[in-house]
């Protein structure tokens, strides 16, 4: 009986989270266009429904009915698999993120997280890196030279920020004493980690931008040079999958930032999930804001920046954190 309840609970949580995430992602595209619109003294989409609220649905329907073109010289299995990899990893990363404390329902204790894994951070890194494979393979298998350049850049970018990203988060792991995300949030009950780790927070935002391939680090895409780079040959739902994956990844990264530095679901008065969503929205807004402000870097600059600036700073941050953690 207990097993049945467990399965039922997981199933419901999965469905609710995925549905919410998908809706969130859909409306994130609209929000981004609206916010960018206001930054750029224009209105943004406003044709489909009042304030353009049906725009994401219209976009979805449109991409669903587009012809699905597979280039002749594409490596077909990989070409088809690549967007799935991106999409899958972006979704499964979200399973680890706690969006609220325990609640009691029908006499059962329910944790507001799909999977409370004890190696949480490692799992997230693993999936994050795997997600990049979707981009690398997608560009490479589409048999287009621009695609290949996009993949090469994605691969180069991946190695330059991933190491730094890991080391940045080590600081919070030392402070929390755990890799489990719920425990990291619990450890911030008194003070958010952004107070102890302000530099790590900033570095994380930078590295996160690189991870989700957004301006100023949108190398694999760089629409003006590579004419969309890795997804140049993708059309229809395969392209939509890449898009959804990109935005889901954006949400995940913002949610992780909330979890590691902004106290996750913790906050007064309002219930946990509300706080969690609010903080995530603030982070997402920051990401969109950055996109509206900065030009794109060149890819060798990113590599130099990743290895010569981000990495040493992250190490320094780790050493200092470790030093003070040993003292206290």
């Amino acid at each position, binding site marked *: 009986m207990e097993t049945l309840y467990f399965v039922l609970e997981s199933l419901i949580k999965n469905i609710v989270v995925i549905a919410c995430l998908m809706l969130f992602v859909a409306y994130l595209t609209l929000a981004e266009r609206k916010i*960018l619109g206001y930054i750029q*003294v224009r209105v943004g989409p406003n044709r489909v429904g009042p304030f353009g609220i049906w725009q994401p649905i219209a976009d979805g329907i449109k991409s669903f009915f587009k012809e699905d073109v597979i280039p002749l010289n594409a490596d077909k299995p990989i070409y088809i698999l690549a967007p799935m990899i991106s999409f899958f990893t972006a979704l499964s990363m979200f399973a680890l993120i706690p969006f609220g404390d325990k609640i009691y329902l029908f006499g059962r204790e329910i944790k507001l997280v799909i999977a409370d894994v004890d190696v949480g951070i490692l799992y997230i890194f693993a999936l994050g890196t795997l997600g990049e494979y979707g981009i690398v393979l997608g560009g490479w298998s589409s048999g287009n030279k621009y695609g290949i*350049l996009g993949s090469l850049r994605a691969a180069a970018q991946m190695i330059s920020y991933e190491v730094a990203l890991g080391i940045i988060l080590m600081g919070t792991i030392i402070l929390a004493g755990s890799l489990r995300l719920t425990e990291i949030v619990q450890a911030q009950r008194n003070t958010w980690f952004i107070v102890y780790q302000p530099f790590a927070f900033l570095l994380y935002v930078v590295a996160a931008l690189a991870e989700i391939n957004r301006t100023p680090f949108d190398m694999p895409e*760089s629409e003006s040079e590579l004419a969309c780079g890795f997804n140049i040959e993708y059309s229809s739902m395969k392209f939509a999958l890449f898009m959804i994956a990109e935005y889901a990844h954006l949400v995940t990264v913002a949610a992780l930032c909330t979890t590691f530095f902004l106290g996750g679901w913790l906050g007064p008065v309002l219930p946990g999930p509300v706080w969690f969503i609010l903080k995530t929205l603030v982070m997402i807004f920051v990401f969109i804001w950055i996109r509206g402000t900065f*030009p794109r*870097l*060149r890819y*060798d600059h990113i590599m130099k920046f990743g290895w010569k600036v981000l990495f040493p700073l992250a190490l320094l941050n780790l050493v200092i954190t470790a030093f003070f953690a040993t003292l206290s």
Partner: protein
Amino acid sequence: MAETRTMTINMGPQHPATHGVLRLLLELDGEIITKVVPHIGYLHRGVEKLSESMTYPQALTLTDRLDYTSALSNNLAYCLAVEKLLDLKIPKRAQYLRVLLAELQRLAAHLLWVATHALDMGAMTVLFYAFRERETILGMLEQVTGARLTPSFVRIGGLAKDIPDGFAAEVRAFVEDFPRRIDEYETLLTDNIIWKKRTQNIAPMSADEAVNYGVTGPVLRACGVNYDVRKAYPYSGYDEFDFEIPLGERGDVYDRYVVRLKEMRQSNRIIDQAINNLPTGPILADSAFAVPPDKEAVGKDIAALIRHFKIAQEGFETPRGEVYASIESSKGELGFYVVSDGSNKPFRMRIRPPSFINLGALPKMIEGQMVADVVAAIGSIDIVLGEIDR
């Protein structure tokens, strides 16, 4: 050691950053460019040849379609050439208005340039800021000329019309406001560390190289060569205006950007002076032979009607000879070389398009640089394919 091979990649003719139908054949070693061959001609409409079968006033409309981002400058350059051939004396008011319109057009062209150049580098917001002002300028030009892109407004002997009421006030308001707008673009770009990294020491040219390649305009001045047709060979009364020629030092993409932004401020000054010191008087030269009578007279006077009809139908015959007239357009020195055999049509009209000659220096600039720099370099020389292919 494994054998290394270069990759040949075809950039364009349909590519978001080649500013039209330019096609570049890039040979890449990784992301480093080892060789680049520009291919042009996708927008060739035979403007030079077409003009040989048109009367002089008719051929004016072709010039709109050369550099379609600054059509009034093209009109002006063509008219100057024909006027030189006819030896017409242009009234002061028309000259000042020509300067005013040409400078407004230069601002519009430079705004379009800063917008697209920044967009190529991923800075999307600048595009919309610059287009906001460009829209104002095009609105003003439309008030005067009746068209936003293809005005054909500067006519042989002067202008098609005088400025409408209220235009001067609008220009003054714009001139007042515009320097603050340039400051806005500068906050987004000039000191932005990413912008500097993307532009400084990218696609550099030395002064000697630039002169050897015949490069003109902001690209040349960014190398520190002080050559501006407005100062060197003043036309249309530019010698009566007080303005400076901004110069760069290193001749890289960043300097070209700085030079153009400074030029916009100078253009603003010129517009200010032109509108405030605008003389009164006629806007067309006094020539019964080449300049059509005004509409009022055409309705009342049979002789004027016939004269109007003759000029519209047959144009006018020009003295035998060859002339060259050039102006400083937003891209560089735009010249028209007209050969007349004494008939009412040009025997040969050769256009010196600044974009074409500046593009010739592109391979020199970008060999050895990276793919992302190609986009920066193309943006920085500000090409318009309508003018290159003619």
